[in-house]
Each structure stands twice: as structure tokens, then as C-alpha cells.
């Protein structure tokens, strides 16, 4: 604000972010209370997911409360979030479900971000007919009523009766949930790719890119070594927000009855309890709150990072 006399020329040397600039951003982020709060919640979520089998009092899918005659019970010391009509412990199921929440968030985001970056950077940097083609495709994805198609896809896949799990390095991967995640990712990149493309187009005109070009660096080298690191901050913000929306969409898809019946995600828990919610509201409300808090955590972190990277907006 003080230097209002010369708006240009000040930002020139800020375009290449060095390690110290990341340190500055981190210092700013640390001051961002709600961002830190969100980060704290994510750390707790990861902790719960990693140690879910030790934390949860009942194993996944356990119907022990039913056999103990405790089905459909309101929250108590024994069952902090109550039990479902079907006789499972809501608290335990929520803890086990956290694994799927993180699975959805991470896989969907990794794939969506890969497409985002490849399309955004090549479209923005290469321009020409590549840009034209990629942007036309992006437009199709933007106007597509994606949630509706996700539902159809999931339903078709459900009906194909695939094997419930794949074994990969000794880990069971739920096939149906993975398909849903892939479809969610397939519809989560278009808007973001446009944002990255815009950033790249602005960067392309900067001196250090022009310099690298005039020194004979190849397009691929420039894109990987110069463009990518410079759009990374923006990318991190987008990725965090994508995680939030992936968790949200999976919850909706599952709630509507299009989820993977072999995985008890929070959305599926809400679906199963929906028709009984006038009696067992706890079985509906606690999974809902879990989805809310997770999405909130990702959004808060995303906000925090973007504020830390654009201090201008906060003065």
C-alpha cells in the first residue's frame, strides 16, 4: 500500500519461488488460526484412519450390539454415538469409515490433479491447436451434468456384479468404490484446468521463461522445471479444495444408494439410517457431522494456504 507509486516492477522478482518463500508462506499459514485448526483436524483424521482397528471398540461390520440386545440404542457410555436399528455401533463404524473417506479424497484428488496439470500446463504453454482441442474437451466436461452421469455410471457398474475386492500387494481394494472415485475424478478437473491454464499463460510472458527459452531449453524442460514449480502453490490450494469436494460427492452418491455395498462409507451409513431417522436420529446425524467436519477441515486448510500465498488480500 505504501509503495502505491510503482505497482509494476515490484512483483517481478517474486515469480520464482525459492525455499525461503515457502518458509514465509508457512510462517503466514501458522498465523492463520482457522487454517491451523483445519490442519489439526486432518491430522486427527489421518491418525484415526491409520489406527482405526485399535481405536474402534468393535470390528467393521460387527453386529455384536444386536446380539447383546442393544440395537437402536441412543448414545450412551458404551455406545458414544448410539447403535443402528440393524445393531451396529455407530462410533466404531464411523472410525472404520474414515479409511474410505481418506481413500476417496486422496485417490480422486491425485487423478483429478494429474489431468488438471497435464491439460492446464500443456494447454496454457503450448497454445495453438493443442490449446484449442483441449479447451473444447474441457468445455464439454464443464457443461456436463456430472453428478447425474456419475449416478448412471455407478449403477451400471453395480449391476455388472464385479468382484467385491481386488488384492493388490496384500491390500484389499474395493472395486466398486474405486470406480466411483475414478468417475468423480473424471468430472473434477475441468474448471481447475482452466485456472491453471490462465496462470501458465501469464507466466509464459515472464522474463525468466523467455530467458530459458532463448537459451534453447526444450518445451518439456521449461514446463517441468520452470512452469510447474511456479504454479505449485495454486495447485496445492486447488488440490485441497478438490479433496473437500470429492468427499462431498462420494457422500451424496452413496447417500442416494449408488455406493459400494462392500464398503461402509459415511455416506452409506447415512443412506441405511435415513428411513429410520425419526427413531434413531443419531445413526444419521453423526455420520453427517463426520462428513461435514472433514469437508470443513479441507476447506479451511485450502483457505489458509491461499491466504498465506496471497497476503495482499489480508494486507
Amino acid at each position, binding site marked *: 500500500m*505504501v509503495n502505491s507509486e510503482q505497482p509494476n516492477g515490484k512483483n517481478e522478482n517474486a515469480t520464482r519461488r525459492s525455499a525461503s518463500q515457502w518458509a514465509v508462506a508457512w510462517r503466514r499459514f501458522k498465523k492463520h488460526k482457522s487454517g491451523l485448526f483445519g490442519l489439526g483436524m486432518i491430522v486427527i483424521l489421518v491418525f484415526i484412519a491409520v489406527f482405526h482397528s485399535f481405536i474402534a471398540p468393535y470390528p467393521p461390520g460387527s453386529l455384536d450390539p444386536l446380539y447383546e440386545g442393544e440395537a437402536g440404542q441412543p448414545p450412551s457410555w458404551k455406545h458414544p454415538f448410539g447403535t443402528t436399528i440393524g445393531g451396529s455401533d455407530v462410533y466404531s463404524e464411523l472410525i472404520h469409515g474414515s479409511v474410505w473417506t481418506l481413500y476417496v479424497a486422496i485417490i480422486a484428488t491425485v487423478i483429478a490433479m494429474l489431468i488438471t496439470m497435464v491439460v492446464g500446463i500443456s494447454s496454457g504453454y503450448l497454445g495453438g491447436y493443442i490449446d484449442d482441442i483441449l479447451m473444447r474437451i474441457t468445455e464439454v466436461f464443464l457443461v456436463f451434468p456430472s453428478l447425474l452421469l456419475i449416478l448412471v455410471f455407478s449403477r451400471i457398474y453395480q449391476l455388472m456384479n464385479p468382484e467385491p475386492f481386488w488384492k493388490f500387494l496384500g491390500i484389499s481394494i474395493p472395486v466398486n468404490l474405486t470406480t466411483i472415485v475414478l468417475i468423480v475424478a473424471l468430472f473434477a478437473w475441468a474448471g481447475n484446468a482452466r485456472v491453471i491454464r490462465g496462470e501458465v499463460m501469464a507466466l509464459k510472458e515472464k522474463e525468466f521463461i523467455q530467458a530459458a527459452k532463448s537459451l534453447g531449453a526444450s518445451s518439456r524442460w521449461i514446463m517441468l522445471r520452470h512452469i510447474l514449480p511456479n504454479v505449485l502453490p495454486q495447485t496445492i490450494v486447488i488440490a485441497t479444495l478438490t479433496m473437500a469436494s470429492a468427499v462431498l460427492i462420494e457422500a451424496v452418491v452413496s447417500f442416494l444408494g449408488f455406493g459400494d455395498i462392500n464398503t461402509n462409507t459415511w455416506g452409506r451409513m447415512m443412506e441405511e439410517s435415513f428411513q429410520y431417522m425419526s427413531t434413531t436420529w443419531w445413526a444419521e446425524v453423526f455420520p453427517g457431522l463426520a462428513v461435514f467436519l472433514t469437508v470443513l477441515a479441507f476447506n479451511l486448510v485450502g483457505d489458509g494456504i491461499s491466504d498465506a500465498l496471497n497476503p495482499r488480500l489480508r494486507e
Partner: protein
Amino acid sequence: MSMNLLEIENLKTYFFTEAGVVKALDGVTFNVEKGCTIGLVGESGSGKSVTAQSVLRIVPRPGRIVGGKILFNGEDILAKKESEMRSYRGKKISLIFQDPTSSLNPVFTIGNQLSDIVMQHNRVKKDEAAEAVVKALKLVKLPDPEEALTRYPHQFSGGMKQRICIARALLLNPDLLFADEPTTNLDVTIQAQIIALLVDLQKNIGLTLVMITHDMGIVTQMCKCVVVLYAGKVMEIGSIEKIFEMPHPYTEALLKAVPRLDQTRKLISIPGNIPNLIEPPSGCRFHPRCQYAVERCKEEVPPLQDVGGGHMISCHRWRELNGG
């Protein structure tokens, strides 16, 4: 009775940022004589624009005027109520910005934005306001002023936009006009036209003009008197002649940085950067970059002293350097 239209005394304007308190103006004192053109000179960040904003009391957040006195026509501006102050802005004191493109609202027609100002200050109807706008546009020699009313800012070139901005500032015949680097963002040929226009207007309507600039060339062309600011402090005040003859070390450095066709000497830039105003240098604020600095400059703040004939200098060594 003083002849001064504007008297600024020990003005302090600070910006309370997250990083700390930026002392943009830290005890600035100078006067502006009625009907005179003075130059307010300094590098970026020296506090020139903030001075103008302080006089109008439109310092943007998180900035605040924390001390000092501003007398306009003998009246204490800082003591006025906000509503009273608003009737001064645009009517008695005006401001022209550096970038005409960003200082015109892009989504309203010229006629709309400019008549608003007329109607704000004078109780007139729409068409009367429009007439006043046309008159002002004619004054700044904008072609087709009537047609300009219905057009949007982006339909004009940079030079034309700056003319419109000048017209906006002159709509209500203000007594005092701040021109904040009005030519910096324009092409060289357009610059000359705008300067000529300002000189003309100043002569014809008896305006008091404060020319804010970092360009000593413009100052010599337009101003009788110069105030040199550095890092929120006044370094030197004096007539053009005095300042060229026996300048403050900082002014001297500024003058050496001006390219001139009639001299073949080397251009010398001032080493170093303008200091951080959160923790400004001790003593004389210019000492870290001053080629004449001695130990005393680091320790003691030099007072702004009259060295004869209204020439004010804030320097420990000026007298000995100038053979005094």
C-alpha cells in the same frame, strides 16, 4: 495573514500492517503558497502519495494520520468532521492519479461518474451537471466533449483518459490540486502534452498545484519551489535555483540520476534501496546511502533548518560541504 494556502506541520501518517507499523510520513512539514506550483519529489515509497492522501484524509486502511497539523486556508483540516471534510474533497482540494486507466471506474460512462461529483457538491439537476462536465472537458481540450459523456473509459486512449481525470479534478474549480505522478504511465509525447496542459491551466485559472513526481526534469520545467521527501521525512525545501545551486546530498544524488541531452556526464544511480519504514535507519534516514555520511549522521537526527532565503535543509554536513 499568511500567503500560504496549505500548511503542513509535523504530519505523521502510519500504516498499521500485520508486519508492523510502517511510518510512511514521520513528521513532514512544509507550506504551499497560494497560486504557486510546488514539486513534491522523492523515490517510490518516500511518502509523496500518502501526503496527498493525508491532506484529503483518504488514507486507505490500515493507514491512519496519527499526529501533526494540516491547515488549509488557515483552517485545521484534521479537526473537521467527516461530512464537512467530504465537502472539501473535489470541491476545494482535488487529486489526479498516476494511472488514468485504473482511476476511472470502468463500468460507468464518463458523463455518469463526472456528473455525480457535480451533483454531490452543488444542488443542480442532471442536465446542468452534464453542462458543467462538458465545460471541464473543453477546458482540458478533449475532442468531442458532448459525445464523451456517453462513452466508457476503455474507449479512450491513455492520454485522453488522463485529460478526463484532470477535468474531473477541475470540475468544481478547486483551490488546490495534487497531481500524483500524472505522466508516469503515459508515452513520452503524451507526457509532454499533459505537462503543457497542466502548466497552461495553472496559469489561466490561478490554481495552486502540488506536482508529485520522482522526475527532476518535470520539476525544473514546472515548479518554482521544491519539497524533497525521503523515507517519510523532508530532506530539503527551496526554490529551484537554490536547490540546483547548493543541494542536499540526497537531492544531489537525485539530480545526477536525471538524463540530460546537454551534458555528456555519466548517469549515476543512487546505491541501495529505499529503507524499510517499519524499522527506519537511525539518525539521518539517508545516511546508509549517502556518500558523505559520517558517524554523526548515524546517531543524530538532523533538524530541518533554514539556511537562508527560505532554503530549508536537513543535513549535518551541508554547511561544510557547501563551503559554509
